[in-house]
């Protein structure tokens, strides 16, 4: 009878179908409960694991909640100053053209202070991967407005909601970099459902394959949540994200050469 099968039986007789990748360290993630950064970290490291490139990969972490990414990703990493990860990655990739180099950046980092570095790395077509976590807010510093904060969305510096007349509209960096000849693959994904996670992971895999083929810069935006900044539970924040972020930041490939 089926219901006599215990968990122990399954573990003993069955197959292990999911386990944390060895490319993640055992450190406890410093992220808030339910934060999308965690899933993004994991699938990125799974790709590196699956491609067997741990020993050839150098990651660049930003300033933002993921500033400590190097505590969690079990690879050689450099912590870049706020916004400068694409320049740091350029510096690395140019001297190590055969290694794999990626940046992992938040929306404040990539789309505000780092705008010039982002655009020019993309425009030069650096052979790197940029992972861009867009949670519409400055998570780390306590929930201030990001360039990607939605119209009327509240943040600690737009306590009455973002007034687009004063602050402008949320910027769509992904659409912008897609117009540059230097990018070869530009996509917008999410990590809030199993299906979304799988799609994101495929995109990351493609990005690293592109890098192997010297195709140019692959740019992956992941629309994510910031429960603390948005002041919502993780479950609610994912729902809010679907309802509010996705219409403004529609998911899918924008460019795939």
């Amino acid at each position, binding site marked *: 009878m089926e219901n006599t099968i215990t968990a122990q039986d399954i573990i003993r007789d069955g197959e292990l179908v999911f386990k944390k990748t060895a490319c993640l360290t055992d450190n406890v993630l410093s992220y808030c409960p339910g934060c999308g950064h965690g899933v993004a970290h994991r699938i990125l490291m799974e790709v590196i694991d699956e491609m067997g490139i741990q020993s050839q990969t150098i990651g660049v972490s930003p300033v933002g909640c993921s500033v*400590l990414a190097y505590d969690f990703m079990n690879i*050689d990493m450099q912590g870049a*100053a706020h916004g*400068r990860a694409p320049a*740091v990655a*350029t*510096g690395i990739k*140019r*001297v190590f053209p055969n290694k794999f180099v990626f940046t992992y950046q938040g929306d404040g980092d990539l789309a505000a202070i780092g705008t010039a570095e982002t655009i020019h790395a993309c425009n030069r077509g650096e052979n790197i991967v940029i992972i861009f976590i867009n949670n519409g807010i400055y998570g780390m510093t306590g929930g201030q407005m990001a360039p990607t904060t939605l119209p009327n969305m509240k943040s600690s510096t737009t306590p009455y909601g973002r007034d687009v007349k004063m602050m402008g509209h949320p910027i769509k960096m992904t659409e912008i970099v897609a117009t540059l000849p230097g990018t070869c693959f530009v996509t917008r994904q999410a990590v809030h459902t199993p299906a979304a996670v799988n799609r994101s992971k495929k995109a990351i895999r493609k990005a690293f394959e592109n890098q192997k083929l010297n195709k140019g810069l692959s740019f992956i935006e992941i629309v994510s949540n910031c429960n603390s900044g948005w002041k919502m539970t993780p479950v609610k924040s994912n729902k809010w994200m679907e309802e509010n972020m996705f219409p403004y930041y529609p998911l899918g490939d924008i460019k795939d050469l």
Partner: protein
Amino acid sequence: MRELRLMKGNEAIAEAAIRCGVDAYYGYPITPQSEIMEYLTMEEPHKRTGMVVLQAESEIASIHMVYGAAGCGKMTMTSSSSPGISLMAEAISYMAGAELPCLIINVQRGGPGLGTIQPGQADYFQATKGGGHGDYNLIVLAPSSVQEMADFVGLSFDLAFKYRNPVLMLSDGAIGQMMEKVYLPAQKERLTDEEIEKRYSDWATFGKKANRERNIITSLSLESEVQEKHNFKLQAKYAKISQDEVRFERIACDDAEYLLVGYGTSARICQKVIQLGREKGIKIGLLRPITLWPFPSEEISKLANQVKGILSVEMSAGQMVYDVKLAVEGKVKVMHFGRFGGMIPSPDEVLHALEEKLIHN
């Protein structure tokens, strides 16, 4: 034998960089040092040695490219002039904090602000006291000839890697733009990736090997205790450098009754002043700091016991003079003479200033 050439200081730096086996130069144009990148792009070092030369979108991008490549254990450099160096302040503090070896060249012009493009020496404070935030020190070398522009490239990298610390070459528009004879070093091979991975396996990022923990380049410690420990380590390193790496040149000091202290272009002018002075019977000597940090305080302190007065000659409103005063501790009179804002003092007016401020006073 080393090759003899007539070159601009800027060009000498560029050629020396190729010959020293530098791995990468990242830069952004600014007068009076654009010839460094222009020479490099003309020479196509990627064909000569595999050296990377990349024009960045800004000084900020350049210095962070340097950060990235330096973090890989590569010999990496950038160059700029005063306003461009100011833009690098944050990154320089990061590099000092992350203990990254690299060479930054400041071919100074007259400030503040956009100022002039003519030579200046008013970035002394910025270079030696840290333009960036936090407690850190750069090793600062001050070339005073085209020959030294070439020679100090190799020296800078030796020091940078020995101490895992950024080195700043503080030059100026006059030395950058002028041509002199220069004996170029012989071509060195660049290190191979394998050699780098071997030499710097304890800190550089080149991909985590199975036999070691991952390497991390960072200047962050969220825990104050950890950060303070790191800072103590940095301070210990600085103390060691202060002890072992002071460099200076003594010119006509043995019998000197008056001492000039000057570096770079000012030191050149001071040499003429010594000659003019001695023609008039004034026994002048020159202490030329070669390292501005660590500063040759001890030597100056010694000389202060011998001379009647000291004049710090700088193309600034008076910056190094404070380090001279700190060294002298009130033992003799220390004065400053400077022209600035792009002006270069003439030997005559320096001599005149010395007479006015130290002799007839």
